């Protein structure tokens, strides 16, 4: 075992364990905090995959914004969030079966693929992936269209969300 492998194993146990807490814990605020732990673990994985920009972006977007938005939403719907009864619907056993079957199927499918255990290739040191990403995002023969469409998507999400949530009466 190399040190990197040990770090990977610790991180993945952390990610999966806290993900399990997210889907099972009764207290919704706790679920949101466990979600933060899980997403932070994913950021650590990005660092190990040498995608440093994605790692910090993950922390900024998911922990800094999405998690806070979720906690706000939980606080705004208090009567339901305080519900201490069972938090799962009656057919949760089926959910377990479906999830387990999907996991088994995915693993089987992936292990039959010949690129399954590719070793990690050397990263060419001359190109800075960050600068590459920046160029690709605004270059016409790369991703400029998705880039602008993402902006429109976010704009429509903003307008739609304000329209739905905003209610002058309760303001």
């Amino acid at each position, binding site marked *: 075992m190399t*040190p990197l492998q040990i770090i990977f194993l610790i991180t993945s146990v952390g990610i999966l364990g806290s993900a399990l807490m997210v889907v099972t814990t009764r207290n919704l*605020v*706790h679920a949101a*905090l466990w979600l*933060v732990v899980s997403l932070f673990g994913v950021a650590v994985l990005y660092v190990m995959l040498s995608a*440093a*920009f994605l*790692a*910090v*972006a993950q*922390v*900024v977007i998911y*922990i*800094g*914004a999405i*998690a*806070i938005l979720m*906690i*706000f939403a939980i*606080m705004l719907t208090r009567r339901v969030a305080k519900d201490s009864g069972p938090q799962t619907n009656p057919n949760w056993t089926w959910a377990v079966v479906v999830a387990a079957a999907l996991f088994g199927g995915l693993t089987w499918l992936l292990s039959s693929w010949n690129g399954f255990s590719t070793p990690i290739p050397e990263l060419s040191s001359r190109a*800075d992936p*960050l600068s590459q990403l920046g160029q690709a995002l605004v270059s016409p023969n790369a991703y400029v269209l998705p880039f602008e469409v993402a902006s429109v998507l976010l704009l429509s999400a903003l307008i739609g969300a304000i329209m739905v949530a905003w209610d002058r009466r309760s303001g």
Partner: protein
Amino acid sequence: MGDPITLIGKWLENLLYSWGLMPGVVSLIMAVIGVVVIASAVLVLDILLVWVERKVVARFQDRLGPNRVGPFGIIQPIADVIKLLIKEDILPIGADKIVYNLAPIMALGTVLLLWAVLPLSSTVYGTNLNVGVLYIVALGAISTLGIIMAGWASNNKYALLGAFRTVAQMVSYEVPLVIALLVPVILARSMGLTDIVEAQSIWFVFIAPIPALIVLITSIAELGRAPFDLIEAESEIVAGFHIEYTGMKFGLFYAGELLHALTVGGIIATLFLGGWRGPGAETYPILGIFYFFIKALFLYWVIMWIKYSLPRIRIDHMLNFNWKFLTPLSLVILIVMAIVDKIVPKTSMLVYSLVMLFVNVVVGWLTLQLLRRNAKSARMRVAEPKPVARPEPSPTAATSQTSSSSS
């Protein structure tokens, strides 16, 4: 050369290698030593800051400040720490124990982590992350989460309300902050803080004064210091999200806030005031540390100066100031500077900087004109006589009452 800290580091590294350790283990040990040295130095500085803060406040208010314990009262903060350590620690009823205890740790821990990327001199820095600026933003995000945790876990209405107000303020001011932080990144073509300092042959504050000002203002708001200290607002919500914290746990929030103020000074010094740059700092890196702390402490003093000179502003004014003034202004200056940067040739650094400065002055002047006009109409609106409550004829009052109750 001529840099004792690098020499000590090299000597230690060679010593470890001579013991026959593997390179990975050596770099791990060096990292641990580096972290412990930086963190404990910063914490000692933090204790000193308590004294500095109290002394400076006293001077602003024409008092003497602590002057009994030790010369000039310099041992006072240590006495404070001992007092906090032996105070009883109260866990309020219904508090969520783990989250409650985690929150103060996060409050101080995130501030400590910021020092991992701040370059103290050309040779002394934790690490030169190529995403340094976003790393700072990310840590700010984690500290916001810590505040929510503190407010929610305390099981106290006022704490929860204070936490929500704080977070609303912090996330609001983070928008212009992040936009303004893009400007030094564009000017230096890098997010690494070391690279940003290297790029400042002319301090960025002279090239981009408006973004520098925006970063200063929004950072003060992020700190929750006056005039943006609505989160503490003793008369409204007791003391904000940390009402229920006693003893050392409160002390950690307090220490975190003080240290954060100095750290913000350091960040702004790095991004806009040339960091460790100064006469002779390249040949003698030890001078760089000195310059860095001079600049950081100067900005810290500016933050204190603002804090003790201005009254607290109203919450609607605070939010308007952010959304209707700072955010548009930062977007405009970002767009203008990005385009001008591409148009003006970079052959002569002096011409380039002068053009940038000119652009900033023009935008600033236009903003002032706009504000002046706006202020006039706002004054007219406020000065209008308010409708006075007077008894209305009974039938209409009755109908309006029934209609309002039915709606």
